[in-house]
């Protein structure tokens, strides 16, 4: 079942800015999706780059969601929301690039929400959520890098 932004705000209690389209169905996708400065990547696409640690502590995504990252200006958070007992989240991961915030494991479709960017629907499966970086220098040599906040 696909949900709209107004369904999601009602269920999660989270707010989005009122100029976003509230009644358009949010597509539930199983591939790469970007939400501002975050990227949702199927874990299998990152085989070798991102690994969940053996001793990883998984926690169920609570009804009011898991704040994956808080943004810069205005402090708007990206929040992962799911029906009870359908999604687990861990931050105990290793990423070669250091960009992964964590890995989610969804048995049912779940959503990543943001007040300015609306919602991204995520099909069941395992995904890493990575943040975005900037950098200067050469990729072959040393790169001075910083994280992007939108």
């Amino acid at each position: 079942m696909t949900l709209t932004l107004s369904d999601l705000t009602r269920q999660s209690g989270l707010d989005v800015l009122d100029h976003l389209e509230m009644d358009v169905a949010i597509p539930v996708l199983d591939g790469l999706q970007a939400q501002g400065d975050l990227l949702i990547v199927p874990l299998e696409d990152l085989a070798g780059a991102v690994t969940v640690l053996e001793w990883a502590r998984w926690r169920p995504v609570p009804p009011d969601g898991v704040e994956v990252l808080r943004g810069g200006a205005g402090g708007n958070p990206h929040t992962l929301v799911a029906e009870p007992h359908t999604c687990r989240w861990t931050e105990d991961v290793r990423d070669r690039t250091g960009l992964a915030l964590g890995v989610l494991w969804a048995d049912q479709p779940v959503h990543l929400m943001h007040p300015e960017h609306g919602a991204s629907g995520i099909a069941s499966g395992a995904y890493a959520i990575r943040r975005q970086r900037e950098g200067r220098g050469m990729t072959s040599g040393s790169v001075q890098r910083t994280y992007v906040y939108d």
Partner: protein
Amino acid sequence: MTHPTPRTRGDQRTAADARLDALDNVRQAIRIRDEWIEQGLCALPADRPAAEAAISELYARVRRPTPRFVWVPSPAAVRDAGASVRQMPPPRYDELPRQRDDWPAASLISALNARLSLRMGEALRLQHQRLSRFLSDPWRREAPEQAVRQGTDVRLVVSEAVIPALARTVRDSLLFPLRDVLGSEAGDPFGYACYGQHSAHQVGEYDIWRRSGLLRLRPEEVEQLEVWMALARSCGWWWPGDDVCVVSERPVDVRSEPAPDGGRRLHSLDGPAVRYADGWGFHAVNGTRVPEWVVTDPTPGRIAAELNIEVRRCAIERMGWDAYIEAAGLRLLSTAPDPGNPASELCLFDLPSHTWGSPARLLVAVNGSLERDGTRRRYGLTVPADLPDPLAAAAWTYGLDSDQYARLQRRT
């Protein structure tokens, strides 16, 4: 003062009761923190009678007579308050006269303050030692209520997830920059100052522990703390002289926005972010202290000459990336459709090597979601200089290769 009463069911106290109590504790701690943040940012006229009464009380505690009060509009104006009241820093302890009676009032008052900090610091250190753990998960620092609900010790949450925002707001974004500005303008030492509202992070921290019922203080500590708290609630900086005490008003205008940590940070796009009645203050954009030109008249020339990268970024965003690219004459290398972002293009520009200090290119992308005014915001990201095309550059920002990034399904 009311301590929250622990919940019980009859004479039973369950784990759920404890959990609910902890949740009350953390919510109250957040409320108290926000009160003190408000005091730190307060731009109302000083409560002069309250400030003078509190300062007189401190003088009495070090057995000195009530000083004469001279009020100035800003900390910078202390220099003009007259040579007779210009304060020298209190001498080092090993240079002080042997008899306390011969010490300057500033030294006695700074010792009084130091003693309170020492006692409080010791109590907090002991408490932290008992916890002997750290908040290892970043989410627990960002979502204090959730952390408590999931069983993290409330004291740990308060010390690592609630209090830091107070220090970042009051100390890091107000006190330190103001001291910096004053130091760079004054040239000569401006003496031992107490910071009134800008010490709200210090007294506020103690008050949070005390009022949320998480730390018991001795009555004499509470009594002294009340005096310093009264000062944080009533005036700006003050300089305790032997005969004269110079006290500054609060600013007349302080503009801020919410910060990611739950505190606030300075932000103003028209005029200074902090302004005192005599015009003294500084500009800030999204929490970064910036020179006035960044807000009033950013130009590519000034941007190129600016050494601080944060300031440069603020200035460019103030101009707008498009305007900056045109005015700075950046060379467009290539463009490509942005996968997952219909009708939007990724543009890759060459940056002159002096722009950011090391070789880099500039990727300009378009936001996936609409702004309130119906436009899509364009934003620039610097990327390493050896990325050949816009797709490879965009992929690099997420640690992917071009083929992977080309499969992006949706961008919001």
